[in-house]
């Protein structure tokens, strides 16, 4: 028990005057697939590099499998990393790359060869061992990087935006591959990405980071359905985010008056009468002239055709709403007057994160 657990306790790191990670605490369970999600510069990669030992925290402790490794150099930590640009050794063959860690561990040649073969098989690169790495495609390089990291049977596998350099189709393939690798190995995966779709598709748990802090964490459906802060909502494609005041809040029903005068009903918990909040609605939870307690009159401005659906921009007084309409054909055109409708249950309560430690 405990093998593969990662425990971060009050970890901080800054570069010069820029605080990259600010007092972050996080527990990763053995065998969990945990994703650190956030925009570039949010501290997710720095956090990952601190787990690997490639950066050292200024304060806080890092535990791997219940052992304090804060002061251990990277080569003594039972973790391996798949790097963003793969970092394959250009002077070694595919097999030479996969064998590198085993050689460093002083394994016998007779032990190395079959392990390398098995690792290459696992990533569907059997028979490619003697290729030079510059003869490989992006996806193949990615797989070599995976094989090179998993051949050492790390207690935790760290993946630093491993798919960001691939094109869309390959990225979707690799997504399935990483997911199946996690299932087969049962190793703890800590995965870093700025791609919300990737995070939701792969993870047991998602940690959304912003500005060096954890903004929210939870299972993918939790994060998707109930984003708690304005930042998380924006990052997870909640589009219609408006500031407003809570007019009344009574058990499971609240009325919010937005800054531009819309009166909207919500069933979200936590509203307090009189407070200033943000409210948000996903475009796909809105419709035209349908059912729903919330009705907003507006005029269609323009349409973005997205294949299986269209996105309409609707002018409603001073606000511009984004409404998603499923299907390829539409009877509407720009200039039409419409009524945007949505359920009270679709209106999210969003806050600016409170209790942020002051910036140093």
């Amino acid at each position, binding site marked *: 028990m405990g093998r593969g657990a990662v425990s971060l306790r009050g970890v901080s790191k800054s570069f010069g005057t820029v605080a990259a990670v600010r007092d972050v605490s996080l527990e990763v369970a053995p065998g969990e697939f945990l994703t650190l999600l956030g925009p570039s510069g949010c501290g997710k990669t720095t956090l990952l590099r601190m787990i690997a030992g490639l950066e050292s925290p200024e304060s806080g402790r890092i535990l791997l499998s219940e052992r304090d490794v804060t002061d251990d150099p990277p*080569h003594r930590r039972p973790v391996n990393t798949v*790097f963003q640009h793969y970092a394959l050794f250009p*002077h*070694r063959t595919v097999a030479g790359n996969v064998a590198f860690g085993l050689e460093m561990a002083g394994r016998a040649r007779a032990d190395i060869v079959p392990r390398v073969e098995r690792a290459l098989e696992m990533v569907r690169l059997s028979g490619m061992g003697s290729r030079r790495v510059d003869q490989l495609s992006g996806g193949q390089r990615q797989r070599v990087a995976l094989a090179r990291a998993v051949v050492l049977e790390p207690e935790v596998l760290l993946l630093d935006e491993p798919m960001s350099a691939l094109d869309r189709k390959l990225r979707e393939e690799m997504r399935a591959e990483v997911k199946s690798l996690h299932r087969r190995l049962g190793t703890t995966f800590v995965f870093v990405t700025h791609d919300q779709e990737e995070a939701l598709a792969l993870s047991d748990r998602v940690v959304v980071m912003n500005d060096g802090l954890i903004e929210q964490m939870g299972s993918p459906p939790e994060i998707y359905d109930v984003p708690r802060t304005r930042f998380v909502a924006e990052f997870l494609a909640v589009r219609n985010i408006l500031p407003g005041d809570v007019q009344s809040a009574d058990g499971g029903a609240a009325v919010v008056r937005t800054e531009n005068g819309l009166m909207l009903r919500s069933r979200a918990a936590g509203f307090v009468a009189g407070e200033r909040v943000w409210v948000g609605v996903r475009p796909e939870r809105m419709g035209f002239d349908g059912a729903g307690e919330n009705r907003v009159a507006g005029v269609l401005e323009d349409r973005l055709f997205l294949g299986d659906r269209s996105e309409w921009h609707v002018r409603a007084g001073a606000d511009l709403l984004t409404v998603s309409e499923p299907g390829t054909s539409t009877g509407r055109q720009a200039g039409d007057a419409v009524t945007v409708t949505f359920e009270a249950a679709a209106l999210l309560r969003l806050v600016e994160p409170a209790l942020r430690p002051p910036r140093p």
Partner: protein
Amino acid sequence: MSPRHRQAVLLLAPAALLLVVLVGGSQALMLAASLGRRSAYGGVTHDWGLQNYLRALEPLYVRVLARSVGLAAATTIACLVVGYPVAYWLARRAPPTMRRALLVLVILPFWTSFLVRMYAWMFLLRTEGLVNLALGAIGLPALSLLYNPTAVLLGQVYGELPFIILPLYASLEKLDPELLDAAADLGAAPGQVLRRVVLPLTWPGIVAGSILVFIPSLGAYLAPDLLGGARYVYVGSLIQSQFAVARDIPFGAALSFALSAGVLLALWLLRRPLRAGAGESA
């Protein structure tokens, strides 16, 4: 002639002309001289034969050649040992904003003639030189620092160091830092990262720098002459003295050719390890 060919010819013609006339022409003259015989007044008689080359193989001269190879090898190794850490620091550790200025400092000695710089070393090393003055000031006995092989090596290393730092810097700067992270992450201790990743990947720079230092050191004559005194003869000074002192142009020319041929032969024999050193396979 296609436009591409015409362009190539136009671009290369000036250099080719210069090389053919000046290098090729003078080499042809020297080759002819090396096969001739010295006349009574220091000229060349056209009395063809290999006698000068046979003379160059006499033990006396082979010893001189061996000493020169030893000096060139020692210079190269010392330059690598001293220059590699400097280049590493410049390329990977020095503040990026200062790098350009620091590189200028590396080549700053070129602004002064090599001869003048060798005289400067004489001022430092001679019996009443600055080093001995300093030693005397703190009550230590004077040392005999000048006119010995160590002084020659010192002068040579000093003179050649920039030639090895620049190619090493170029190859170290290209090294992707993520590769070093990856090596450490895969369990390589710092020494192993150096041996298994950094050195193999900067091998081209090591080879280029070593050749740039080794070849001029082989024929060096200023540092041996000025810092080594007359006791130790190196092939560079030997050739120089054949032309300037002994007035034996044919023998000097033969020595020059033998030296060039030796260097070319050595490079050809070592071509595989020099090229493939980076390809640490599997």
